[in-house]
């Protein structure tokens, strides 16, 4: 039976932190619900497990209902109360969440999880550093391995200027998990705050190596270089940090959408496309693949994945291998939706490169018919006609490309090439010379020189 999930239109405040709460532990994908398989009167533990399952899918409404049912059966169970609190926290019902965390702590005084959740709530939402720190310290006494509590407490200490304690706590975190780039970054920043530039730099370098997309690590590392007087290196790193920060800003809405709709193929596709735009190919591929796994008829996801393969490969052999995979993906995409102009164009490019120009022309033409406003489809078509020595057709396509996008350098170069192929050096030269000198590759410069020689009296 297909699982129906509810889309929530709540603003996800502090989702990044939420993801590490126990309530957010990964659950299995679509499966029949326990309740549906259960007898008429499920037990409290069955209701609770079902709630966990729903919560993992971001079905907070469903999860809340199950937890409330479980609590109705077993009102003194601290775990049920705590998890209900996490759902309410995730849906921004902070007052109720706070009461439930407090109640869970009363029901089980040695229960660390609600202390951590309440501590985070007090800090992130109420802005109460002191009360949050107290709770997180208590939690760490009860559960010394609780990384979430240690990290949040360390962060508070760092922001409060208590760098020594922050260093101790962050060090414990990276000792426990050397791949924890977030903790290592903050450790570096804590050393930076103390003025220990060398240690800060060493930690931040390690953080950027293990997590090359974490802007704060690059920001901190840039600071260390600047403080050592190496402004050029520092500036480069700070610019990278800013770039990553801007990427993160653009990724965040898509990440939030996915968090709320983890089984929606469009959410994966949108996030994948954004990753692809930033050349972050691995997560892009993961999310395109996930979109396909969730909906095997999702043509755009095949196209997106195909585009990634087109960008891979450092050797000729590897490139050929990836190209054949891209081709298969494009064909599948077109099988599902023959109206995808970009797919036709990209498949045309693949075929063109492999020497099958006739087939490439067919796909380019199809792309130009579907999307009449994309100049570069016309430019590609023009180039293919040129390679087939069909000069009038090539000329017509190049003209159309330049009508649509007058500044398109590639189309103008092709136009010149078409004239040159017909030994019309005057028009060839005119076309090429209209390209901004700064945009002329060396090959074009050579062609221009050659045409000038031909034109010379």
């Amino acid at each position: 039976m297909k699982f129906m999930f509810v889309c929530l239109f709540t603003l996800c405040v502090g989702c990044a932190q939420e993801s590490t709460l126990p309530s957010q532990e990964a659950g299995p994908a679509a499966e029949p619900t326990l309740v549906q398989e259960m007898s008429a009167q499920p037990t409290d533990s069955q209701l609770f497990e079902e709630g966990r399952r729903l919560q993992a899918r971001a079905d907070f409404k469903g999860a809340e209902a199950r937890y409330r049912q479980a609590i109705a059966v077993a009102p003194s169970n601290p775990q049920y109360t705590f998890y209900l609190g996490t759902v309410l926290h995730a849906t921004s019902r902070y007052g109720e969440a706070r009461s439930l965390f407090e109640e869970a702590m009363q029901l089980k005084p040695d229960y660390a999880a609600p202390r951590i959740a309440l501590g985070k709530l007090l800090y992130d939402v109420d802005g109460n550093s002191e009360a949050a720190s107290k709770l997180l310290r208590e939690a760490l006494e009860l559960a010394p391995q609780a990384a979430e509590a240690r990290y949040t407490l360390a962060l508070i200490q760092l922001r409060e200027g208590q760098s020594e304690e922050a260093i101790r706590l962050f060090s414990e975190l990276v000792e426990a998990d050397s791949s924890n780039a977030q903790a290592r970054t903050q450790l570096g920043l804590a050393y930076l705050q103390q003025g220990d530039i060398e240690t800060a730099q060493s930690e931040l370098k390690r953080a950027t190596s293990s997590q090359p997309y974490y802007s704060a690590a690059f920001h901190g590392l840039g600071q260390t270089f600047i403080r050592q007087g190496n402004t050029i290196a520092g500036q480069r790193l700070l610019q990278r940090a800013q770039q990553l920060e801007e990427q993160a800003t653009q990724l965040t809405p898509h990440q939030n959408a996915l968090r709320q709709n983890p089984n929606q193929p469009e959410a994966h596709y949108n996030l994948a496309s954004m990753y692809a735009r930033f050349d972050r190919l691995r997560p892009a591929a993961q999310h395109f693949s996930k979109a396909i796994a969730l909906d095997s008829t999702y043509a755009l996801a095949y196209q997106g994945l195909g585009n990634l393969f087109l960008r891979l490969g450092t050797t000729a052999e590897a490139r050929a291998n990836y190209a054949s995979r891209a081709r298969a993906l494009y064909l599948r995409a077109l099988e599902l939706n023959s109206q995808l102009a970009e797919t036709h164009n990209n498949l045309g490019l693949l075929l063109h490169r492999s020497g099958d120009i006739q087939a490439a022309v067919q796909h380019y033409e199809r792309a130009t018919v579907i999307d009449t406003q994309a100049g570069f489809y016309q430019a590609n078509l023009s180039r293919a006609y040129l390679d087939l020595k069909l000069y009038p057709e090539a000329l017509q396509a190049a003209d159309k490309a330049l009508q649509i996008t007058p500044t398109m350098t590639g189309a103008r170069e092709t136009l010149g090439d078409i004239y040159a192929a017909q030994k019309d050096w005057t028009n060839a030269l005119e076309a090429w010379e209209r390209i901004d000198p700064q945009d002329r590759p060396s090959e074009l410069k050579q062609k221009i020189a050659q045409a000038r020689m031909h034109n010379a009296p």
Partner: protein
Amino acid sequence: MIKLNRPFIIRSIALIICLGWSIGPHLGHAQSISFTDVAAASGIDHINTSGSAKKQYIIETQPAGGGFWDYNNDGILDIYLTNGVAQDSTRRDSVGTALYQGQTDARFSDATSRSNAFLTGWTMGVTFADYDADGDADLYATRWGPDVLLGNNGDGTFSDHTESSGLGSTRWGIGASFADFDLDGDLDLYVANYIDFTLGGSPFYDQWCTHNGVPAACGPVGAAAQADLFYRNEGHGDFTEISAEIGLTGRSYYAMGVLWTDYDNDGDPDLYVANDGHPNSLFRNDRHRFVDVALIESVAYSGDGRPQAGMGVAAGDYDRDGRFDIFVTNFSQDHNTLYRNSGQGYFLDVSGRANLAGTSRPHMGWGTFFFDVDSDGYEDLFVANGHLMPEIEQAGIAMQYRQQNLLYRNGRNGRFIDISNQAGSGLQIKEVSRAAAYGDYDNDGDLDILVANIDAAPNLLRNDSQAHGNWLSLRLRSGGSNREGVGARIYLQTEDGRQMREVRTGTSFQSQNDMRQHFGLAKASLADITVQWTDGTEQHYASVAANQFYTIAKEAYKITVE
């Protein structure tokens, strides 16, 4: 029960005496600082009206600006307050800005109508300066809609100079500030603009967004940022917009607070802009072209590498090391940020160490300034607070819509002490505050505070502190085009050390402080003063007596008691 033996008690008493000796004066001092709201009693009856009570549109959350100035040159501070628009269309023509003229009895009379300084529509912030060097301060108002320049006619009235001066940007202006960026003697103007916004239109239409689970006005995220504007004073009462010419062509952010300060002590004014939700900007003045060095100088982000939501901005030498430090107010659930100027080409985020981080997280900060509240020679700090969303109180969190403002006393050890709860009834007020300015409106030698509030009367917080040190107040006068000495730096030396100030226009948030420079002298009765004018002229005045208002006249090289 703990049983106390005699040696323990004696040791304890000794300890208490020792502690009392060392920290007693501080504690006693804090208790003696007291502010009382005297706005209504002083004749200020202005009520801010900012659209609907629900605040569905972001425009309704901002228009409470104002500041101190002396528009009629009588030596008594006057007050100008901005305003929004009434939701009820029948009231629209009667809601607008207000000008209050200071009287000799420390009361104010409403001079709005007789001065022709009344502006209707969404007026945000103000800055005052004698841009045309005709001997009196003019007024520039940032607005949603065309900004306005009111020229001071010198007879207590104003004329609209917007068109003739070439100003009047239709962008949504927030912060604005005059400075002589090219040191040519006249005052140029920077205007910080916010977002491309249409009331009820794209991109937000008539929708609500949510924040912390409750309804909130949409924006600024989702709206296009409007580029800031820089106007060069051409010296004939007109300005030319030259942002591109001087290097201000970078990416546009949601700009709010503006601050001119010579942070690198090279003699020309640099520009800091607090940006909402984006990295802040620090434009270093490199021979009259600007380069954004905020990243390099570490003042773009918080110390842990996050862009914050910059609102108001202030500069002061709180640690008296001869370099101006920068303070930026931010959104609630984040901390206000104190960037200490290391003097080595970068700033350090010392908010936590200065005790300004945790204390500010529950508040949404706006107007702010350094000022020496107790005249002890160290600059203290004020922050005006207030949330954006009336519904925030329904969110089940500790956040409130109306918030208490914050007053920090400088602990003289790099830390500030939050004395808000011990600073009298004026600091217990909870409003939705925005602009904040300091000024000695009653000319009694201590600094008072003006706070503009959304949908409420402003607060005029009279400084009633019993114990404060000696002081002196300096007004600069120059015969050139920069009549008020904007950008000049003043050093004051006593046996206790050296302090410095800089003459600035529009800073804080939509606001401007008293342009007279107040110094606390603690116990010193004499001080040596050095003035560095923007043209490089340096003047020295030795053994200036405390507890007086002075005017320093540049051309006459003379200091006189007012």
